[in-house]
């Protein structure tokens, strides 16, 4: 009971602190961190207050302890899944989507033919693709990368195609008056104008990539990797390890997203959504 009360108090305090911080116009990272810490405290209090079994939901303190105790293991899994699987797939998938978007943009025939079919293929749910990819590309990270490629392809393609239409009529007319070639127009006008859209897709794809790589490991993996660890640990009810992996995933994913968002800020500084917070 006292735990639950404490939880409620902490929640109120955290929220108040955040409002205060936001009013001060300061904080930067401080605000989300406070928010997160509040959530964690709430969780801890709930687990203790309601006496939830550790095989259902471990307390954050248990997870932290496990995390500290297994950094070596977590790092090995991280390299296997996030770096080899997700990152490779993200880069390849991004390039592929970008190339297809350009091809579709360049050749109307392809756009009409490929886009509907591409949407169709990309809409294949990865869960179904995962076993097939494992069958084709083997148990190791290559099959994970393949699934990530398929997963990130669609969002990046859709956004890039959309973005390539984003330049305004007058901006295009200007290029026409310079008799700029297709590639020049693309490079100097349409790509810059498309960047806000492309980054939209790239950001969504960061999280998809990590999920994809992890989930794919459920369908076959060497005996390491985040997805492998999660799925086997659930079976062994080592939920503290499961959550430690999830924490790694969350940190890696957020950092990945944050990196892309920073890049976006640098590239699309001119877009109204970046210029001023309205």
């Amino acid at each position: 009971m006292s735990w639950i009360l404490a939880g409620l108090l902490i929640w109120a305090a955290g929220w108040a602190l955040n409002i205060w911080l936001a009013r001060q116009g300061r904080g930067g990272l401080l605000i989300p961190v406070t928010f997160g810490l509040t959530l964690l405290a709430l969780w801890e209090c709930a687990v203790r207050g309601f006496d939830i079994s550790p095989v259902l939901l471990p307390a954050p303190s248990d997870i932290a302890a496990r995390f500290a105790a297994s950094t070596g293991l977590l790092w090995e899994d991280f390299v296997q899944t996030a770096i080899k699987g997700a990152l490779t797939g993200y880069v390849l998938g991004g390039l592929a989507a970008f190339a297809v978007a350009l091809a579709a943009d360049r050749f109307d025939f392809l756009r009409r033919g490929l886009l509907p079919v591409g949407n169709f293929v990309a809409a294949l749910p990865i869960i179904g693709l995962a076993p097939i990819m494992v069958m084709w590309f083997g148990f190791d990270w290559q099959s994970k990368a393949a699934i990530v490629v398929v997963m990130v392809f669609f969002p990046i393609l859709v956004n890039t195609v959309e973005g390539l239409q984003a330049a305004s009529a007058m901006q295009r007319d200007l290029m026409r008056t310079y008799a700029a070639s297709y590639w020049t127009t693309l490079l100097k006008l349409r790509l810059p104008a498309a960047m806000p859209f492309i980054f939209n897709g790239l950001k969504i794809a960061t999280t998809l990539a990590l999920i994809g790589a992890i989930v794919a490991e459920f369908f076959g993996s060497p005996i390491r990797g985040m997805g492998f660890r999660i799925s086997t640990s659930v079976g062994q009810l080592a939920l503290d390890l499961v959550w430690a992996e999830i924490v790694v995933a969350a940190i890696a994913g957020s950092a990945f997203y944050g990196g892309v968002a920073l890049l976006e800020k640098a590239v699309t500084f001119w877009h109204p959504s970046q210029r001023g917070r309205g």
Partner: protein
Amino acid sequence: MAINVIYAKSLDLTFETNDGPVHALRDVNLEVGKGDFVSFIGPSGCGKTTFLRVMADLEQPTAGTVTVNGVSPEEARRARAYGYVFQAAGLYPWRTIGGNIRLPLEIMGYSKADQDTRVKRVLDLVELSGFEKKFPWQLSGGMQQRASIARALAFDADILLMDEPFGALDEIVRDHLNEQLLALWRRTEKTICFVTHSIPEAVYLSTRIVVMSPRPGRITDVIESPLPRERPLDIRDTPEFLEVAHRVREGLRAGHAYEE
């Protein structure tokens, strides 16, 4: 006989819109010779921009023929025969002012050093030196307009198509830029098509003034200027000048129902 730089015959242009067609140009005929300075004047919405866009191959006429430098507008465009100043500034927000002016130079393959000198020169011309590194949204409306003029002057096109380039400028800058433009024109023998709303400006600048009337846009009058090519600013107080201005005003007035 010298070949016409611009030649339009029986031009028609109709826009199809969600509620019916809009006749923007109807039976437009015009010949512009090399080195002419032609001003277009007419009530708002009469088709001046549309006509300029047709010359620039940005709009396809529904009927009739146009040639630019004796070839189709498209070929002329491909040959980079003209510089175009749009009615709105239309700067690319991701480029600085300097970057925007440099854009056509990059596209047309000027050398890096040449680009730099040209950018500097035209920035001086429109008095924006010091703003090279600013982004468009950090400039006032008039400054943006000047940057867009500079952009069109930065490279060497034989034909300049200018759509109300000085609309957002005060009289002093305008006078200054008018002089500069005239000097440039005399020096380079460019052919200039110039849309304006200012009667004195049209008369001061042009060798020929085309008056248009609206819906559907037609040419109602073409006035040859008797003024010499050499024009100091105070030519605007001479009787010849006022005489021409009067004719233009009369022609314009005819296009406005409420003035009759």
